[in-house]
């Protein structure tokens, strides 16, 4: 059912329980998953390992999603094209718009979405590339 892909996906999420679940479903889908618990670590891992896609939360300590995305997009080669999916929990369109302006290409409301839909979106973004 899940295709074998050797692509790496980066999950950036500060809530450990949720991060574990996201990592789990993506691994089940066949991806190699690397994870970070805050925006700063996420940025470091992104620039050093250059994953094929990034799934990130917005509201995080140390460095939030918007700042991390902006920093990633500064890299003109890999950083400008990697698909970044932003998740948000709060009904804050202002924050979502900022994330999209910074370079996020999708946003999902965590409270409305199913886990497998997140995976489906990642697959779509990676397949479309």
């Amino acid at each position, binding site marked *: 059912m899940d295709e074998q892909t050797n692509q790496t996906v980066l999950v950036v999420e500060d809530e450990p329980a*949720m991060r574990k679940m996201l990592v789990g479903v993506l691994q089940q889908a066949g991806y190699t998953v690397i994870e970070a618990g805050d925006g700063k670590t996420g940025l470091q891992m992104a620039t050093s390992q250059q994953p094929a896609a990034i799934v990130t939360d917005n509201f995080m300590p140390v460095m939030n999603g918007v700042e991390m995305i902006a920093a990633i997009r500064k890299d003109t080669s890999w950083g400008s094209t990697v698909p970044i999916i932003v998740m948000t929990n709060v009904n804050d369109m202002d924050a979502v718009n900022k994330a999209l302006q910074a370079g996020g290409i999708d946003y999902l409301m965590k409270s409305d979405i199913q886990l497998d839909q997140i995976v489906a979106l990642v697959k779509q973004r990676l397949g479309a590339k």
Partner: protein
Amino acid sequence: MAYLGVITTRDQYRAALTDRAATVAAALDSDKVSELKGSASDAKVPAYHELQTKLRLLKQNNTDARSIYLAVLKNDQVYSAVDSEVPGSAYYLAPGEQLMGASDVFKSVFQGTLPTVEGPLNDSSGQWVSGLAPVVDLRTGQAVGVVGIDVDSSEYNRTIIAAAIVPLLVTLVFLVVLVIYEWNRLRQQRELRMRSELMSIASHELRTPITGMRWAAESLLHTQPEGPTKSMAQAMYDSVLNLQAGTEDILQLTRLQKNPKMQLAPTDLVVLINEICNTQRIVAGQRRVIIKMDQSWPTSLLLSCDPARIKQVFHNVVSNAVKYTREGTTVLLSYKRDAKNHSISVTDQGIGIPKDEQGRVFDGFYRASNAKASGESGTGLGLYLAKTIVDQHHGKISFVSDQNKGTTFTVSLPADKK
């Protein structure tokens, strides 16, 4: 401002004193004054007693004066001629007594024949102010004597200080009131901001574990084989969905209650509706429901409203439509404008609202029987909250529903007055 008060009042005081001296001088017969030479023998001159009586009378009209006296110029020095006081009293000047302290100002009154005020000056008896005015012989135009009214300086000081103090006090009170008002307003603003931040944090803190539970329950549900464990997982999943719906409603309600005042801002409704549609699209996609804004919409639509709350209204109405419309159908959003209002309609092709329950749709915590039966989660607060907010905006929310065709909810908001 208070400084001006001091100047004006001081000037006014001095002008008044000048007038008073001039009045006294005018009341004296210049011929009689001419008879006095400024020597001790003046006391024997008949005019002396007349003038003294007059001066005493005039002193009665000048109760704040220490004394009123008449001085004459002799050999370029100023000598007392007659005064209002009794010999032996504090301010008595004997005739012929030289006024040693007479200044050039005093002397100039003899020459210039213009009344003036001198002082405050100090002497052994304290501090005083003098109003000086010449007694003029109208035939020659020369001053034959100078009238002096000496007023105790403390009276003078008291008057000008009082006059200065009043505007100063008024300004002070005004400033204090202003400061208190501003401080209060800023404190209230800060509290509101803190409260709304607290609300955001509380929302986040509640939503996070609930989302986590939902994801986990959902995963479990999908991975369980048919059997008792799967039913348990289903029960947990359903409960979590209800918990999520209830929490959202309570957060909405709390937000409304904690911040009863609306925060109006110019809002583009087209952008707002678009955002709602985008957020709902993924949920809609799960049942292949399409959300569409039809061609009736303008490219932009500005309205003064509380954007967060209006967003809540349409979120509730649209999410209802998405929830209860039949699988694979379309939720249509359309717009109409008349002279007074903007009307936004949300039409679904769903289970509708039974006729006998339609009256209670906007009641808090009311869910129609078929909604409950549908298995969809919900607490029934959504429409109650929507109506509260629409009412706050002086708008109207209404619906038409056919139980087997679908429902159309219409929100109408008054247009901005031009």
